[in-house]
């Protein structure tokens, strides 16, 4: 009977409110539509930045000029970094999938502040426009690297001001999303959903949001100071006037190190969603995984100095930062071990999203473990600012968060669009991505240890073999990614209708029949147990009806429900 009522409600895609057509999207306050708008915008920039990446690989195919001049190359890697970091990887999972699924997983009708949510999308677009405009105005996009190190960034004749302005605005957008999520998680959990009954994706987002709120302002002011320095010459970052370039690096990394955990924590949250679903079993060590997210977020604030081991920072400081850096590995390890343990005595349903998660665990571990090489003082001093670092961060960013972004798309695609894609093609594409990825980035570790510095337009001939291997890898990766997106796009247009719960997921979004409606739930559900319990229901989806059935036993059920 409940289904009948639901069937009459239009889903969020069909819903016609005050505004129709395109305005119904641009003025929407629905978290799901805003999520999709983010998805579209983010995909556009992701493709732009990926194309820049592939162009860089082409340039590196041969020593000397291959397809571009040094000035172009310098702008290309800067823009590649800026777009990937600020326009893709930081907003991707929180702003798209967090927006879409966080409220549903919490049993809420929307985020706490829908208007702010839309506002943050517009800020994102504004920042994106500025980033793109910096290409075509003034003397062209910044050529400083995404780190904007002074004093080069205040001396460069390129349009650095506009690029930093873009990053500044994007930072603001990120803060607003984070703030919204913290309040949403505190205030809008469904009745019965205690902290330790919250899905782990929500935990990941919670930790992420705190980083967004508490770290982002620091980069805001730092970038603003670069702009002021360029316009007015206030001196705080200009060594000619007594400013200290190392202080700039402190301020930059105070934000940008925690930011790498903004990138990875939501992805780790999704891993914790996908694994129990396909293992068809409760997750191993729920509480440890939940708490370790907060642990990573906190320790993440204490390690920024590991980016500055050769900058001339005090020796004492280098030692402290190196020691602290190693501590981040512990909560991350706890997560990895718990994930693997979840598979023990499971009954695994092998599907595309699960395959991506396996790829993630393998590739991210490589990335993380090489992070330890960078964390150790002696080795970092040798490999810092070489391709070893480039390999490390592509393994964690692309191989970690990027692969999980793909996994997330495959996992929630049926619930977002109501369509099903070809799993076979998805798995083939994933295999190809894994091969191409490793061929692209693994040689960089070797080159890096051999002493190939990063941000080099040109290189010494002894590196050419590795560069060729790497470039060929990028082509394999390109086709894999094109294949994957093609598959999804085809499904979107022509795919068969997806079942309500194709994977047997246990969290609230899978309990919704069909696509979510405007308000997600006809009635706010009542939660009676943990999120990944497979052998009994832990949610009462239609409390008013079901309670009458069971003589108002919701309370009792809740008490009995194991709350982990």
């Amino acid at each position, binding site marked *: 009977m409940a289904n009948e009522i639901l069937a009459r409600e239009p889903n969020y895609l069909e819903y016609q*409110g*005050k505004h129709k057509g395109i305005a119904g999207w641009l003025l929407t*306050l*629905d978290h799901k539509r805003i999520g999709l708008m983010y998805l579209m915008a983010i995909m556009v920039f992701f493709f732009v930045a990926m194309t820049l990446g592939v162009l860089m690989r082409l340039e590196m195919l041969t020593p000397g000029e291959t397809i571009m001049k040094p000035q172009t190359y310098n702008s290309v890697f800067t823009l590649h970094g800026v777009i990937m970091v600020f326009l893709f990887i930081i907003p991707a999972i929180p702003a798209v999938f967090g927006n879409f699924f966080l409220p549903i997983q919490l049993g*809420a*009708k*929307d*985020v*706490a*502040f*829908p*208007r*702010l949510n839309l506002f943050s999308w517009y800020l994102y677009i504004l920042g994106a426009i500025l980033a793109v405009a910096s290409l075509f105005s003034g003397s062209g996009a910044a050529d400083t690297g995404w780190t904007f190190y002074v004093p080069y960034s205040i001396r460069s004749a390129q349009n650095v001001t506009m690029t930093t302005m873009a990053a500044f605005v994007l930072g603001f957008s990120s*803060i607003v999303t984070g*703030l*919204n999520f*913290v*309040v949403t998680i*505190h*205030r*809008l959990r469904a*009745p019965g959903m205690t902290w330790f009954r919250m899905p782990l994706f929500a935990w990941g987002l919670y930790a992420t949001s705190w980083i967004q*709120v*508490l*770290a*982002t*302002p*620091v980069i*805001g*002011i*730092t970038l603003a*100071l670069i702009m*002021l320095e360029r316009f*007015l*010459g*206030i*001196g*705080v970052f200009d060594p000619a*006037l*007594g*400013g*200290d370039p190392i*202080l700039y690096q*402190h*301020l930059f990394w*105070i934000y940008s190190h925690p930011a790498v955990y903004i990138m990875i924590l939501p992805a780790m949250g999704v891993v914790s969603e996908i694994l129990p679903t396909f293992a068809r079993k409760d997750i191993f060590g729920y509480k440890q995984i939940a708490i370790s997210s907060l642990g990573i977020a906190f320790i993440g604030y204490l390690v920024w100095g590991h980016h500055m081991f050769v900058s001339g920072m005090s020796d004492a400081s280098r030692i402290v930062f190196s020691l602290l850096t190693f501590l981040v590995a512990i909560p991350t390890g706890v997560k990895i071990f718990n994930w693997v343990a979840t598979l023990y005595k499971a009954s695994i349903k092998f599907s595309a999203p699960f395959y991506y998660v396996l790829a993630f665990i393998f590739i991210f571990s490589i990335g993380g473990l090489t992070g330890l090489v960078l964390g150790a003082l002696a080795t970092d001093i040798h490999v810092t600012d070489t391709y070893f670092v480039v390999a490390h961060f592509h393994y964690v960013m692309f191989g970690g968060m990027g692969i999980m972004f793909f996994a997330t798309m495959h996992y929630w695609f049926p619930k977002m669009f109501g369509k099903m894609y070809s799993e076979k093609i998805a798995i083939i594409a994933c295999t190809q991505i894994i091969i191409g990825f490793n061929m692209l980035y693994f040689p960089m570790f070797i080159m890096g240890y051999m002493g190939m510095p990063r941000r080099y337009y040109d290189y010494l001939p002894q590196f050419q073999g590795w560069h060729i291997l790497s470039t060929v890898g990028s082509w394999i990766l390109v086709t894999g990614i094109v294949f994957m997106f093609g598959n999804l796009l085809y499904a979107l247009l022509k795919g068969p209708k997806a079942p309500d719960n194709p994977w047997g997921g246990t969290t609230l979004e899978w309990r919704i029949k069909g696509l979510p409606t*405007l*308000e997600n739930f006809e009635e*706010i559900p009542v939660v009676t147990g943990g999120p990944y319990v497979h052998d009994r229901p832990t949610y009462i989806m239609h409390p008013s009806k079901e309670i009458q059935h069971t003589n108002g036993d919701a309370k009792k059920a809740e008490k009995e429900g194991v709350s982990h």
Partner: protein
Amino acid sequence: MTEYTETAEHVHESGHMHRDDEASKMAMWLFLFTELLLFGGMFLLYGAYRFQYADGFKVAAADMNSFIGAVNTIILLTSSLSVALSIGAIQRNQKKLALAMLWFTLLCGLGFLVNKYFEWSHEISNGIYPGGPALQEMSNGQVIYFGLYYVMTGLHGLHVIVGMVFLAVMIAFIQKDIITNSNYQKLENAGLYWHLVDVIWIFLFPLFYLLH
């Protein structure tokens, strides 16, 4: 506690308006944290440079007019009081008093800015501004001191202006009875913001004016 709070600002057409003051207060505090850390970055720079250029900073600070600084401190403290009082007045349903207090706060804010204006123009007319003739003669420590001085007090001044805009909107809301004795979280939030601006000045004042 009779209703399920759907969203703090529940705006779906189909839904009825729900209010969650707790949520909006929480959001306001989070926003204040971001402001705090924004200035925090600047204070960190100040601390670092003061550590490095202790003497230059002292010499530079000797130029500052600590009297104007002190007056401005008192002005802001008083304005904080009046905002707090206006909330108290709204709680007691004394609309007139609340309005008067807010107008008084705006006046204080204006006074603060006027003072700042005179102070800045005095410095500038002496050639003390980034790239200015007097500054070019000075030591690195002094240059950075004044660089920070202009950025930090400028940013603070900007916040005073934003705060005044907030409070002006609150005045309109009170007049239209949107803010009442049972619904005044908006005013609380504006007040929180204003107090934050005050708190930041509480630190700026000794750091820039009392360094002899």
